[in-house]
């Protein structure tokens, strides 16, 4: 029988369990599924081999059992296929997904079956309906097929065949699956290059190999559902890429270390696919953005530029600015007095980051967890969209404890490592950057100006009238596709059904004559908000069904939803519909729109336990709010 393990009875040991022992204890006592929400926190302290071991333990759990206990845990079906033995990828993958709060449902394809899996629409892989397919490619894919002895021209020929094959498979995948396909570049190994004794041939091999990898990377441009992972930067981290013994004997061509970093990247993609991309980077100041303590050392005593350590902090500031230029909102949270902090940002000659780079600078003596909550409220974002970076173990521990949804990047007293630590987990990775992304920080700064403006009015109505909100409500066009897809992926609060749409899903809806795909844009006296929402309606006979209604949290509470709903219902009536249905599927984040439909005249029609459906008979349609100037052309022409 099993050796006895401590259960819920009195603790036999006083020392706290390591995360791995705690996982083992939960697994052995049969309580791991019940305690699944605890897993994410346990994994946050693990990395490398420890994380893979944890994935091994988690892999013994049946995902369905976890879902029975915790129906709200987001599950992602991931198919693993490719060249060679790939079942060793499942353990690190399980752990990496769990770290991000995702439950992995793995489907591991048969050995070397990826060509069949991806080309046959009836394959077991497609039958598993994966949201993400990992097709793992390794250099043996090519070297298994060159003759003995081989020449550079042989490698070039096989590479060409393989890239053509992969292009065909990517196309087949695009027409068969709604999911995302991940391919990867092929690392070139010394055990292959060194078989050529002359430098000239070796260089030629390197060149044809890189050409093939470049073609592979460019495949993604023509295939919207394809992502190509560049393994070169991961291989360059210095871990062993391929273990000769495992490769030769077990046909496991990538080393456990490489599979672990591959799984980490796949986890980032899983986070992005499920709408969990982070939006805001909250930075500590003392010993994070500059060396030293401002309160003790004074503005002239802190290290920023001009010294060894000062240069390291500057490099970190440049990376933060780089992220900010791509739509990541930067905020500062520091235990300091506010005025000296502002003075550094304004006057210190060496600083790269300035006040304008931040949506908010908070410097006070309150617990940072409180400041993060306030910041979330001011920006109208959830704290789960925050990444918090701090060198203090105390502050990191406090935020982890108080706000487990926040991703904590633990820095230390070596500023040269700050950049790697921050970038390690691809927190802000996204499929495609839109114009909205680049202007996002400016829009959020306008938001705080609006917030100050609001405080100068006695009533919300006065405020809204003066705000001069203009809304357009028009069909989604091709150029809107990336942004509309992004809204479905990023929006969690005003999202009635939380159905995430990849760009191709949006295109399908535009092309479908029975679907209205409508984009909402707004602007006001402080500036243009851009494309802030979308509505999808499917018509069926004389009824319409609102598939989803989304609005960016930046423009809540201004009557925009009422204006659009009003226009939509009028258009439905004018085009001969008899009723419009709308559904609400609750998640942890969208309670704010729970009563949206009943508030505007819809009657409850059905409730299946997960989704409530409402019906509007189009008799009495709510008018648009008076303070909004609405231009609506739901079918491309003026109403």
């Amino acid at each position, binding site marked *: 029988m099993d050796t006895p393990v401590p259960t819920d009875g009195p603790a036999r040991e006083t020392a706290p369990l390591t995360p791995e022992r705690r996982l083992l204890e939960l697994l*052995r006592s049969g309580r791991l599924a019940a305690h699944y929400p605890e897993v994410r926190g346990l994994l946050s302290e693990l990395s490398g081999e420890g994380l893979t071991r944890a994935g091994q333990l988690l892999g013994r759990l049946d995902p369905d059992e976890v879902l029975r206990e915790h129906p709200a845990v987001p599950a992602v079906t991931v198919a693993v296929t490719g060249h060679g033995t790939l*079942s*060793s990828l499942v353990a690190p993958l399980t752990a990496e997904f769990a770290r991000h709060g995702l439950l992995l449902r793995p489907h591991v394809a048969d050995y070397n079956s990826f060509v069949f899996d991806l080309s046959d629409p009836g394959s077991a892989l497609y039958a598993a309906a994966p949201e993400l397919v990992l097709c793992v490619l390794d250099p043996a894919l090519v070297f298994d097929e060159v003759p003995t002895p081989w020449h550079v021209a042989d490698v070039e020929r096989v590479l060409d065949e393989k890239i053509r094959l992969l292009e065909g498979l990517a196309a087949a995948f695009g027409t068969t699956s709604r999911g995302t396909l991940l391919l990867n570049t092929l690392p070139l190994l010394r055990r292959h290059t060194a078989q050529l004794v002359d430098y000239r041939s070796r260089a030629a091999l390197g060149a044809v190999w890189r050409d093939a990898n470049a073609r592979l990377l460019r495949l993604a441009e023509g295939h919207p559902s394809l992502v190509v992972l560049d393994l070169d930067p991961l291989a360059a981290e210095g871990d062993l890429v391929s273990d000769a013994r495992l490769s030769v*004997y*077990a046909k496991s061509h990538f080393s*456990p270390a490489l599979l672990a970093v591959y799984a980490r990247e796949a986890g980032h993609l899983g986070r992005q696919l499920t709408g969990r991309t982070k939006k805001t980077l909250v930075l500590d100041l003392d010993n994070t953005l500059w060396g030293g303590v401002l309160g003790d050392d004074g503005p002239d005593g802190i290290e920023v530029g001009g010294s060894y350590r000062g240069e390291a902090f500057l490099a970190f500031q440049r990376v933060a600015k780089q992220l900010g230029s791509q739509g990541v909102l930067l905020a500062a949270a520091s235990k300091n007095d506010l005025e000296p902090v502002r003075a550094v940002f304004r006057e210190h000659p060496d600083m790269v980051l300035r006040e304008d780079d931040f949506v908010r600078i908070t410097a006070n003596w309150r617990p940072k967890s409180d400041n993060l909550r306030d910041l979330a409220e001011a920006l109208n974002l959830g704290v789960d969209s925050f990444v918090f970076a701090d060198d203090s173990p105390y502050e990191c521990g406090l935020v982890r404890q108080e706000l487990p949804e926040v991703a904590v990047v633990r820095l230390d007293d070596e500023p040269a490592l700050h950049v790697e630590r921050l970038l390690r987990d691809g927190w802000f990775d996204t499929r495609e950057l839109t114009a909205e992304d680049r202007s996002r920080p400016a829009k959020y700064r306008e938001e705080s100006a609006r917030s100050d403006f609001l405080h100068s009015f006695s009533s919300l109505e006065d405020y809204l009238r003066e705000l001069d909100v203009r809304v357009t409500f028009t069909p989604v066009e091709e150029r809107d596709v990336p942004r509309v897809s992004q809204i479905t992926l990023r929006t969690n609060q005003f999202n009635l059904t939380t159905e995430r749409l990849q760009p191709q899903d949006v295109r399908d809806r535009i092309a479908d004559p029975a679907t209205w795909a409508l984009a909402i844009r707004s602007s006001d006296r402080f500036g243009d908000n851009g494309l802030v929402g979308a509505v999808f309606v499917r018509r069926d006979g004389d009824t319409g069904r609102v598939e989803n209604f989304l609005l960016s949290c930046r423009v809540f509470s201004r009557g925009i939803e009422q204006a659009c709903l009003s226009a939509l219902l009028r258009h439905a009536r004018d085009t001969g519909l008899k009723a419009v249905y709308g559904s609400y599927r609750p998640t942890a984040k969208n309670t704010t729109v729970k009563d949206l439909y009943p508030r505007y005249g819809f009657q409850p029609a059905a409730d299946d336990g997960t989704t409530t459906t409402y019906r509007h008979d189009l008799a009495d349609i709510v008018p648009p709010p008076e303070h909004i100037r609405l231009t609506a052309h739901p079918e491309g022409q003026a109403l």
Partner: protein
Amino acid sequence: MTIDDFVTLVRDELGMPVTAEQIGLSLDEVPGWDSVHLLWLVTALERETGRRVALPDLLEASSLGAVHALYVPAAGAA
């Protein structure tokens, strides 16, 4: 490495509820066994024992006991 140490390692690394009595079973009969577990065991065993064994022998092992035997120094060896 004693049998008990080995069983503990399998239980801790793989989370498998195996017992010392089960290590003579054919791997096919060990509840929850998957061939991928052998690959993980190689890494763990080499880390714990500092010994490198011939991978083909390990991949051909028919039971956990046979895997363990590979890591026990032959009689008379240093």
